[in-house]
């Protein structure tokens, strides 16, 4: 039996009937066509499906869509629209921090949430924040570089704005 779900996705109010067995990831991808949220393992191990739920990263494969009732979801499409992570995306590009790109959206979600909570992370803290994100192509050095550089850029911009 379908259940009515109302939630906010990338700033828009969404009302849909969903089957309880539908994961938030499948709901975003199939019902809303937001395919930037990737699915790898579907058991919480790879981090490809990370989205922001009420401002913090969660695995969309491990959250049932019905559990998102009343919450606010932000996907990579939302970050693209607002431009909130444009600088981070540019650094991933500059530093060759992606190859196939399958993991990248999840990496960006972790990185964006880390920098919000901790604007000046050490490289160890960056690695720790990425411990639940698998990349099967690049190795992590370039990814850590991209996040580290973005943190410095943002700090410099804040300083300059003072």
């Amino acid at each position, binding site marked *: *039996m379908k*259940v009515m779900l109302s939630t906010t996705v990338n700033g828009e109010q969404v009302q849909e009937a969903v*089957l*309880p*067995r539908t*994961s938030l990831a*499948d709901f975003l991808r199939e019902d809303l066509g937001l395919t930037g949220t990737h699915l790898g393992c*579907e*058991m*919480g191990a790879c*981090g490809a499906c*990370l989205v922001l*739920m009420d401002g*913090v*990263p*969660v*695995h969309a494969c*491990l*959250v*049932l869509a*019905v*559990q998102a009732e009343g919450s606010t979801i932000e996907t990579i499409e939302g970050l693209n629209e607002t431009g909130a992570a444009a600088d981070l995306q540019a650094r991933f590009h500059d530093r060759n921090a992606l190859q196939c790109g399958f993991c990248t959206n999840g990496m960006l979600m*972790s990185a964006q*949430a*880390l920098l919000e909570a901790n604007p000046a992370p050490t490289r160890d803290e960056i*690695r*720790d*924040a990425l*411990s*639940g994100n698998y990349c099967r192509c690049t190795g992590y050095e370039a990814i850590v570089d991209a996040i580290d550089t973005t943190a410095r850029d943002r700090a410099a911009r804040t300083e300059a704005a003072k």
Partner: protein
Amino acid sequence: MKLPSFEFLRARSLAEAWALHSDAGGDAVYLSGGHSVVPSMALRLQAPSRLIDISQIAELHGVELQGDALRIGAMTRHAEVLANPLIARHAPLLSRAAPHVAHPAIRNRGTIGGNLALADPASEFPAAVLAMRAELEVMGPEGQRMIAADDFFLDLYETALIPGEVLTAIHVPLPPEGRMFGFDEIARRRGDYAMVGVAAQADLSDGVVSDASVTLFSVGVTPMRATAAQDALKGAPLSTDSIARAQAALATDLDPPDDPGFPAERRLQLARVLLGRVLTRMEAVQ
């Protein structure tokens, strides 16, 4: 993998949760953070016909001082356990355990109540509540029960909870001034389950250990209290000698499983090394 079909119901009160549970004739599972239930259903390890979401029930929320204990609501998420100042002050073994529990995104959803109710022997919080001699507040249609952590973990994924009962909170007795705490684990990768882990606390009186509480996890079917190691520490100053005695005593306390690729002897050896590290760090700050 996709989940099998089930019915999803949200309980607004404990009474409603019990009614929805008994109504399903035992074929129902409570849902808190869902970070163990959902993957286990995806893997077809279980296929209950009903999931009862208990996350909105008021009694399961909040962290507050109540008399001589800190009451931690079962719905407190791992990330909150990590960040809460009352927990850091009065139940530091939990704050020290939290960074070792999974990855940041999982900590944003997983709850301490779900974690304890699941009772994974490689999990960090069960060992921490055992070492702190916490009491678990449990409510069922018959009323409230307080269960000592020592009596809660019965077997592999088996607790003293009666089907339908809800774990509502953890009560941690407030520590006396000067209590020492130690926590660490050895894992293959940051955020992975422990190969072996230790949670310990000790009190000194006139420079002598008057009380010690040592638990190990990932060494058997439940988290375990190391009573011989505790006794070896008591009545002497915490020193290289007493630490060596506690390490030796672990052979009496533990009978680890013999896994292919991870022999019992090696696990015991790792437990000794880790216990030595944890106690030495406690000695250094005393």
